[in-house]
């Protein structure tokens, strides 16, 4: 099964693959998933501050939507643009659904932080990346999304504008502000940035 999926991703164009999916080919659907899962999972994971479980849920939601609504995709935009757009909208929808209730237990007495970075400790690059990811997750979605699409996915300003359905100027403005917020939050990591 995996071998045939692999062959599909190698030999079929995106248009052909989509056509096969519309025809109900499970191999084609899996090939589509294999080809694009990294994009979707990465956006979701970086949007939600490294939460793998939530990212996996988002990934499943996105592909379920995608595979049940392939007929809706008219081909007037790049498929990846459409895919990113569904992913972004699903992430934003999930943010609205998520509610956090205060835990009334264990606040009296000792309370240890979950991550403890002393300033005199050497910080592994993976930990820095986690800290950056976490700080980005603390930004409002309108600032978070352009950063994730730009730096996780490598999209251009024009591509980001197309995904978010806004102007390039808006993308630029939000990235500008998002960068400054990050710099303010993570000034202590200045020496770690190349």
């Amino acid at each position, binding site marked *: 099964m995996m071998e045939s999926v692999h062959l599909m991703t190698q030999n079929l164009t995106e248009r052909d693959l989509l056509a096969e999916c519309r025809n109900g080919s499970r191999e084609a659907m*899996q090939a589509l998933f294999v080809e694009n*899962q*990294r994009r979707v*999972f*990465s956006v979701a994971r*970086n949007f939600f501050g490294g939460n793998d479980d939530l990212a*996996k849920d988002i*990934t*499943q*939601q996105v*592909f*379920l939507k995608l595979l*049940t609504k392939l007929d809706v995709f008219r081909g007037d935009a790049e498929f990846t643009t459409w895919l990113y757009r569904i992913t972004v909208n699903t992430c934003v929808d*999930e943010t609205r*659904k*998520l*509610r*956090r*209730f205060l*835990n009334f237990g264990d*606040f*009296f*007495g000792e*309370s*240890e*932080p*979950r*991550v403890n*970075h002393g*300033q005199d400790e050497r910080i592994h690059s993976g930990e820095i*990346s986690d*800290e*950056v*990811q976490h*700080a*980005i997750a*603390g930004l409002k979605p309108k600032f978070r999304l352009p*950063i*994730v699409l*730009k*730096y*996780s996915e490598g999209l251009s*300003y024009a591509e980001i504008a197309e995904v978010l359905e806004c102007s390039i100027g808006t993308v*630029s403005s939000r990235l*500008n*502000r*998002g*960068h*400054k*917020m*990050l*710099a*303010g*939050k*993570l*000034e*202590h*990591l*200045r020496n770690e*940035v190349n």
Partner: protein
Amino acid sequence: MNTKHYKEKFSEYINHELPKEERQEMAEHILVCEECRAEHDQVKLGAGLASMLRQADAPPGTWNEIETAMATGAKSRFSFFDLRVLAFGFGSLVIVIGLGMMVYFALLRGDTAPIAKSGPPVIAPAQNTTNPPVVVPSPPETTAANINVPSDTFPAKVTPKQPPAVEPPNKLQPKSGPAVTPATWNFETIAGAPKVGDSSEDGKLAVGDFLETDGASRARIEVADIGNVEIEPNSRVRLVNTSSKQHRLSLEVGTLQAQILAPPRLFIVDTPSAVAVDLGCAYTLEVDKAGNSKLHVTSGYVALERGGRESIVPAGAVCFTRRGKGIGTPFFESATPALEAALLKFDFDRGGSASLAKVLTEARAEDTLTLWHLLPRVQKSERERLFDVLNSYVAPPEGVTREGVLRLDKKMLEAWRIEMENLWFS
């Protein structure tokens, strides 16, 4: 020399999104403009940090679950019947019912005023550390324009238009007869057998009396004619004072929930580690056996005061106190667990710069409540960082300068706090 500033375009410049000629112009400008160079450095730092984001593959088995969902015909794992949606819906229903009961109770008592979010709280200057100031209500019509900051303590004290030196508004008077503050408070049993002294009968609580609940008992105390307090199980309270000028309860241990419809600062609760000053609100106050407390405000504002330090806690926010260590920094209940943990360490366990850095990393726009309270509680170098982060969320209004904030000018701090409230309650 090109004197045009490019502040909004540094992101494009750093990411090579600009045409060559414009890029060249900006490069020349950055060399000669200190302001733009500083801004460029910040944006560049942010871009460098963001570039640390990594891609990752979905865990093994993800496709199998999708395939299974498709085979069973499930539209989405998160349909309307998602448990979290149900929990949210149920929670909302509970809140609506609770609000409805509060309004009904208020109407029943003849008080038609809703529990409105107070305007900026009014805090008279602390007379001394053992006798906290009287709670002064913040009239609904109080506006930012009426704010002036009289006190030397921090956070900056807010006073609205001077409250009238007369009896509280008619809506707060008892229905019949002249305004009389009873010498005792009525209480009723909600569950179990609460005790007043050796008595376990429903009745009255006089000044000096204790009311105690065991694990199965709850009671409701009528606070004169201004509201009520529910005493949770395993709690012990004492009526300290009751008069037309002040109603005072002491919570030694346990939990109470207060709903007060009165001018601010009329109702006060002493705990072993702080004094909770009602500013027209509803809140839950818990005290543990060590005398530490946790305040959770559900409506209006409450001020926690001790030793010259004060925390103004708005609706939706929480503040801890520790006996012997003072009052903590308020934070919204929606803050991340990591922020809460770092803040507790900073407030009570000498977390220092590392904890503060964690708070800044975790902070969202709403957490400017927390960051604003931290301004006077940190060293100057850290205060500069706090200012920068706060500024990125809410620009200081006209008349508020960076220098003024860094030297803790009370009027400027208060003016900026009012601007931030738009983020807190949006």
